[in-house]
């Protein structure tokens, strides 16, 4: 296994992979620090091959082109980026809320028990620095249903699963289930967890061995997290 992973790191560093294999290695590179280190080590190992390229002076005008591209951006740009990010999040949130609403509708149209009063769902935007993964989770307290919608950056990796955790105030992660890449999915929150959810738990997604953590606690890197809050 160690050898396999190290070979995959070498293949990724060399750029030999294509298609799904490359996507899997890339997902691992994004999510797994030990894999990143292996890629870093292989890249460093192979770097001397670049010494065979003969130095050549670039054309004189090239520096001014670079200088223009690295000029300090206007002070407002950070705000613009944040604003764009926020509107993107709103888009994800709207989609997830609509989905939760349709699931709630499905629940309330069942003949019994009597439909609970609809309440605005709680929402968590999940992401993490250094990871491309984004998810939107919505929780409907009345039906105790949690809908998790992967929005970006969650790729299937052979031999790995993405597991969702709920972390209440006591700080101890509770396993919620495996999140499949792509489609949104609904999870039932057990009744004993409902009060914690209503108070606003933190949700986290970690990379685990196929089928989920063998220990009942997260063992792999957390690639996205966010706190469930009322909208």
């Amino acid at each position, binding site marked *: 296994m160690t050898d396999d992973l190290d070979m995959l790191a070498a293949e990724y560093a060399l750029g030999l992979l294509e298609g799904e294999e490359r996507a899997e290695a890339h997902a691992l590179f994004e999510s797994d620090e030990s894999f990143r280190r292996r890629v870093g080590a292989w890249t460093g190992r192979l770097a001397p091959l670049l010494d065979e390229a003969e130095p050549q002076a670039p054309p004189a005008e090239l520096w001014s082109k670079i200088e223009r591209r690295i000029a*300090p951006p206007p002070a407002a740009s950070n705000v613009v980026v944040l604003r764009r990010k926020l509107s993107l999040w709103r888009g994800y949130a709207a989609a997830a809320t609509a989905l939760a609403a349709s699931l709630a509708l499905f629940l309330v149209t069942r003949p019994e028990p009597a439909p609970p009063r609809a309440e605005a769902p709680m929402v968590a935007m999940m992401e993490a620095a250094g990871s491309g993964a984004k998810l939107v989770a919505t929780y409907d307290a009345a039906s105790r249903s949690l809908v998790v919608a992967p929005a970006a950056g969650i790729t299937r990796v052979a031999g790995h699963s993405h597991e969702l955790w709920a972390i209440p105030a006591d700080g101890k992660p509770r396993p919620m289930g495996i999140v499949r890449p792509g489609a949104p999915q609904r999870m039932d929150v057990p009744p004993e967890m409902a009060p914690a959810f209503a108070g606003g738990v933190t949700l986290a997604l970690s990379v685990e061995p196929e089928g989920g953590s063998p220990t009942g606690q997260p063992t792999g890197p957390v690639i996205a997290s966010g706190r469930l809050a009322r909208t």
Partner: protein
Amino acid sequence: MDFPAGARTASDESRRLAGTLAEVARGDSAAMADLYARTSAKLFGICLRVLGNRSEAEEALQETYVAVWRNAAAFDAARASPITWLAIVSRNKAIDRLRSRRPAQGLEAAAEVADDRALASELIEDEQERGRLTTCIEELEERQRDAIRSAFLDGATYSDLAERDGVPLGTMKSWIRRGLLRLRGCLER
């Protein structure tokens, strides 16, 4: 897995470059101009070697320095020498450009070789291994050596190499994997 800090004896030039890069990381554009003056010929040579075309190489060189400017703060001079990092960034930018010229193979074809920031912080160089690479590469079978160099310098993928040599993909993969294992064994000796 442990990575030895290495018995890297940083040359004066390497130390100077590390100092310049630290200034670049703080957003000092004069330091950036200095960095460019001292390293652009080497990096342009690499872009030209990979792309074999001047105007493409000029584009890749621009992208290289923009990425260096943005990610200088993530680079760890204790793990690798600045010139190695710069060389790798230019190689990656040139390979990205090479790949983008190919007919699209879906979304992933547009994906970059590796994330610039992550690589800046994870690049590791072992000075003892560095000295042995030439010898160890020479110890490989010719087709293995050839394939590894072609992947790194010409952006060849497994399927390119299999097609070029007229062998099944699986055969090419096991040749190269055997070569990589041998290379690692030799370097760690």
